[in-house]
Structure formats: C-alpha cells, structure tokens
C-alpha cells in the first residue's frame, strides 16, 4: 500500500483547524454571544431582529405611557374639581329655590354661582405642559370663553378630535375628551349653559320661574360630567394595565432573546478544553513523527 509521504502537512492543516476552533470559542466567551455573525445561526439572527424590535417597542411604550399618564391624571383631577364645584352650585341653587331668602341674599347667591362658573371655566381651560387638554386637537387655543351677561354665553373654540396612544399589541387608548363633549354637550347636559342660566335666574334678586328646572338640569349635568370622567379613568386603567403588560412582555422576550443569542459558558468551556487537548496531542504527534526517514539509518 502506498501512503502519502507528505502527510505531515495534513497534520499541520488539522492543527490550523483546531486553532481556528479555539479562536472562535474564545471569541464567543469574550463577547458572551453565541451568534457573532449571521452565518453562525441564520434563523436565530432573524428571530433576534424581531425579538429586539418587540423588546424596544415595549420599552418605548413604557416611556410614552408615563408621558400621557401625567396628562390623564391632570384631566381627571380637573374633572373631579368640576364635579365638586358643580355640587356646590347645586346646593347654592337649592337654597335659593326654597323661597326663604331675600333679594340681596339671592343676588349674593347669583354672585357665588358666577364664582363657581368662573372656577369651572378655569378648570375647563386646564393646560398640561402648555397644551390645553379639553380643546380637542386645538391645544394651542384657549378652549372656552364667556361673553355677554344675563345670561352670559359660553363659546367653545376647540374641535371634536380625539387622540389615541397605540399600545404594542395594537390597542388604541383614548387620551382626551374634547371639551364640548363635557362642558357644552347641549340640551340637558350643557354645564356652562345651565350655570349661566342659573346665574341669570337669581341675578335680579328675584328667583326666576325657570330656576327650579335649571337646578334640576345642573344635577343631570353633574352626572354627565362624572360619566365623561369615567372615560378618562378607563383610559388611565387601560394604560396602567398595558404598561404592565408591556413590562412583563419585555421581561419574557428579553429572557427569550438572551437564551437565543447568549453563549452557553459551560458548554463553550468544555469545547475549549477538548480543543486544547486535541491541539496538544497534534503538536506531540507532529514532533514525534516529523523526524527523518529511512535514510537516517543507512
């Protein structure tokens, strides 16, 4: 049988291969990454893109949600203030309607009601970070203004647009309620209109014939404001839930991504040790057999 006389060069090639393997393993150990180039694991590399996309999206949503939470809380507390102001207005109007008050008392109540109205107006014009929150999309314009007297008229300068924040899983969370839907919803639910009417009812010192009906209307309007407040409360609840879900998802995905891409240190260390042993063995073999031929013995 003939043999390849230059088989030592093959051994050298094997030595190079082991060397390359050692290099690759050391690179994995030092970077902590199992997949250091796309061809190491093409499927994992592709999955990694999608996982990171979702992780970063969850991350970004958590930040955006903290931005809007402030706005929703300000809107909620403004509406809370409106409800307590209106409750006060109702008790004022009710005491004025019981017929025991004299003209100056009634005028005083009318003035107090005007004070309540101004307070409600101020709350309706609440702004957050310089943006009016009850103006629909017209966040740069003061949403409500009052003009004229007995009865004064309220004007809405905003629009009916609603903003949404989209969660990573596609839920649309309502971020605002346009002011006209809360304060000037028309008919029985017209908060500012009813208040202006009541002010006019008692302004002369004589309770007007519509005073009782207007007081009842204000009670209805308070309920309506509370209902609108629930919309914002719902948004806040959904937002908190969505943020928590995003946080949980991020944690799970990060774990998955780490599993997918991270090097298994124990496994690599074992492989490295095997490669080193092989390298040493090959070196000894080359040193042993490299010497001489039959010519040495002649």
């Amino acid at each position, binding site marked *: 049988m003939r043999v390849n006389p230059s088989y030592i060069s093959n051994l050298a090639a094997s030595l190079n291969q082991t060397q390359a393997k050692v290099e690759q393993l050391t690179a994995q150990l030092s970077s902590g990454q199992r997949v250091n180039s796309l061809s190491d694991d093409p499927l994992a590399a592709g999955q990694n893109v999608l996982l990171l996309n979702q992780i970063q999206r969850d991350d970004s949503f958590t930040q955006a949600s903290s931005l809007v939470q402030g706005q929703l809380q300000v809107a909620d507390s403004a509406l809370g203030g409106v409800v307590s102001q209106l409750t006060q207005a109702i008790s004022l109007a009710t005491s004025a309607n019981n017929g025991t008050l004299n003209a100056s008392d009634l005028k005083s109540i009318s003035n107090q009601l005007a004070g309540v109205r101004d307070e409600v107006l101020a709350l309706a014009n609440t702004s957050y970070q310089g943006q009016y929150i009850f103006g629909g999309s017209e966040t740069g314009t003061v949403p409500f203004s009052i003009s004229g007297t007995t009865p004064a008229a309220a004007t809405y300068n905003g629009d009916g*647009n609603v903003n949404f924040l989209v969660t990573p899983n596609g839920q649309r969370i309502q971020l605002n309620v346009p002011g006209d839907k809360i304060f000037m919803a028309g008919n029985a639910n017209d908060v500012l209109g009813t208040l202006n009417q009541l002010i006019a009812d008692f302004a002369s010192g004589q309770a007007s014939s519509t005073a009782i009906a207007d007081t009842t209307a204000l009670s209805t309007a308070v309920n309506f404001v509370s209902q609108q407040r629930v919309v914002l409360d719902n948004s806040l609840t959904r937002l908190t839930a969505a943020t928590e879900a995003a946080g949980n998802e991020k944690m799970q995905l990060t774990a998955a991504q780490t599993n997918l891409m991270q090097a298994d240190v124990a496994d690599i260390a074992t492989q490295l040790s095997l490669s080193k042993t092989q390298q040493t063995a090959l070196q000894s073999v080359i040193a042993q057999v490299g010497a001489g031929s039959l010519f040495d013995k002649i």
Partner: protein
Amino acid sequence: MGTISSAFSLISGALNADQSALSIVSSNVANANTPGYTREIPNWQENDPVSINGLECGTGVTQTGATSVRDRILTERLNQQQQMAAASGSRLAALNAIQALFTPDSGSTSSRAGDIGSDITGFFNSLSALEANPTNNALRQQVLSTATTLAGDISNAARMVSTQRAALDQEAAGMVAQVNALTASIAQLNGQIQSTSPGADAGVLEDQRQQDLSKLSQLIGMNQITTENNGLSIATTSGMTLVSGNSNYPMTTGVVNGVTHFFVGTTDITSDLASGGGSLGGYLAARDQDIPQVLNSLDQLAYGISTAINAQNNAGTNLNGVGGTGVNPANPSLDIFNPPVGVTGSAAAMSVLITDPNNIAAAGPAAGSGDDSNTVAMAGLADFAIVNGRSPSNFFSNFVTALGAIVGEVQTENTAQTASVTQLQNQTNALSAVNLNDEAVAMQQLQRSYQAASQVFAILNTIMTSALNLGVQTAVS
C-alpha cells in the same frame, strides 16, 4: 555459446544500467520537495537473448529511461475539485466581508450602533412616542434624529457593499494576467511535448504542464481535453477554447455597465466564468449574484420605508397648520426622506430631507396642531406590509436570515470541497510524490546490485587474466 568477453560486456551493461537507475533515484530525492514533481521509476529491460549454435544466451539488461508515475484521471479529478473549492473559498471570503456589515445586535446599547434592525424599531418607536404629545419639540426632534440614523445606516451599508463589489471587481480583473500567463505556458508546453514526446508521457514537461493546470484550476473553471500527439486543449466550462495545440487565446477585459466583463476575442464569457469555478468564478458569483441581492434588499427596504413614510407625512398637517401635498397638491412637499426615483439605488441615496421638526405632520388633515391621528397612522406603518409585501422589521429579519443562510451554505460547501481536495491530494501524493523511505530502499538495492556487478567484473577480470597468461601468473596482471 557465451564467451568471457560477452560476459564482460553484459556485466558492464548492468553497471551502466545501475548507474542510470541511481541517477533517477538521486533525481527523485533531489526533487522530493519540488512542487509538481512526479516521482520517476527506472525502466529495466531484459536484453533479447542470442541463440548461438542452438543455445540461448542472455545478453544482460538495459536501462530504457525513467517513467513518471502519474494517474492523469486522478489529477484531473483533483483539478476539478480544486476549481470548486477555490470558487466556494473566494465566494465565502467575499460573503464573510458582507455579513460582517450586519453583525447581530446583542441587545446592548453599544452593539446597537449601526444595526439597521434597531434603527427601524427606533424610528417607528419615536413616532409612537410622539403620539403621547404631538406638539412636543423634543419628541419631534427625536423623530428627525432616529430618521437620520436609519437613513444614514442604510445608505452607509449600501455604500460599503458597493465598495466591496468594486474591490471584488478589481480582484477579478487582476486575475486575467495570471490566467493568460498560464494558458500561454501550457500552449508552449503543448508544442514542446508534441514534438519531443508525442507517443508517451513527457516526464518533466508533463510535470510542468500538470503544474500549470493545477495553478489554472485555482483561478478559473475549465475542461481539459486530451488531443492527438499528447496535446491538451483547454476550454471554459461552457466550451470557449483557451488553449488549443500550441496556441492560446488570451482573455481580455472590458467594462460593461460599470463592471468588468471578460472576453475571448469578441465573445463575452463572464457568465460562463461566474458559474465555472476557480477563485475568479467565486469572485464573479459574489459580485454578480450575492452582492446584487444584498443591495436589492437594502434598496427595497429604503424604497418601502421612504415612500410609505413620505406619503403618510404628506397626508397630514404640520405643526404650523400646513397640510402636505396629499392634503393639497399645491402645498410644499413634506417629504421626510429623500423621495426615491425607483427601487434601484434608493438605499445609497437614502437621507433625511426636512430639517425643521415642525414639518413632521403629526396632525390629521384639517385638524388642530394637538391632533395625533397622522402620527398614529405613521407609527402604524411599522406593522404594515410597506416593504415588498412585509413589514420593515419582518423584511429585515428575513434579509439577515437569508444572508446568513447563504453564507452558512457556502461555508459548508467549502468545508466539504476542501476535505475532498485533501483526500484527492492524499491519493495523488501517495501515487506520485517522492517517498524518501522508498528511495532509500531503492538506493540500497541498487548499491547492492552495483557492488555485485562490480564484483562479477573483478572476478571476470581474474578469469580473463588467467586465460591470457595460460596458467603463467606473472605475464599479465
């Protein structure tokens, strides 16, 4: 009947034969490490006997020269395997350089730099964040800055890939001179072999020719055809003749559509070479198939994102209350990205046009500045099939998987082919390389037989002396 003088001439023939065999062995030992050298074995031939008075007499031995021990089928198989291994090797080198541009993002901030996948996510995330507060200048700036990063990284990747392509192109063009030198040398050797050794193996000349063929196999894919009088024709894999007899047909290069093409005479053999093999084939495969695919994917990504985002931004109203061309065609355009003319070249040309963050049309048409409906629509494009039927992230994910798979495939191919080359090389070496142990044995054998023949000669000499002196010992010594 043989005589003493015929024994003399017989044994001196044997001494000559041993000497020439020894010189063959010496030549083998001397060339033990010469690349392409094929070991030679001495040819021994028993001389024709003569019949004298009905008695057959041997007339000794003659050395009829040396024969190179080679298997041309094996060598040809080795050459062919070498062509494939060289092709996958050079293609792999090119692909490795390309995939290094798309190192997977480990998830840490530092590894995110330059990662297009994270850039895409970052850009759409900045739009999602703008939903929270559409009039906020910082958030608007963030959209512009992520858009700039995305456009910068995509165009940068496209430019780097193009640069690699140009480098491969030069590398490939530079090989032509080597190929031509080798084909010229083979043609010349053909001529020499046909005139000196038309009927048999040409020994050293054949060694040189095989060595040239082996070198040529590293460079290009080719077929060899043995012709009459021990000639050799060489043609490209699809049959374009490069060497025929003692003439060669040099390759020339010329630039067609911005890349180097290869010609023999006026025939364009570029695609022939690209599919053929050898380093040149590998470079051309990377240049003409792999890199254009990568570039096309980047172009589609850039085209899809730019077109969809531009259209959506133009469908909204900017912070100053001005709608884009989608709202009113007479208005100035609110293109965020440089609008691509067509898919081709859009990656390299991708850039951000607007400098004023107020020009991000966060609001819907005819809505107030605080509206975010158009932002919601723009951020929603992240999940829309805007890039060749896929969402941007999905498209990029598929792209990296496809690229990684190709590199992996070529890697496996190359490993297998290299192993096969090693195996064939082992077989060829076992047959044709100089084995010093064998030569030592041959040397010893020849030494013994030479010594024996010398001894025979000395004895014959004594016998002859005895015969001449007719028993008187002193006359002739």
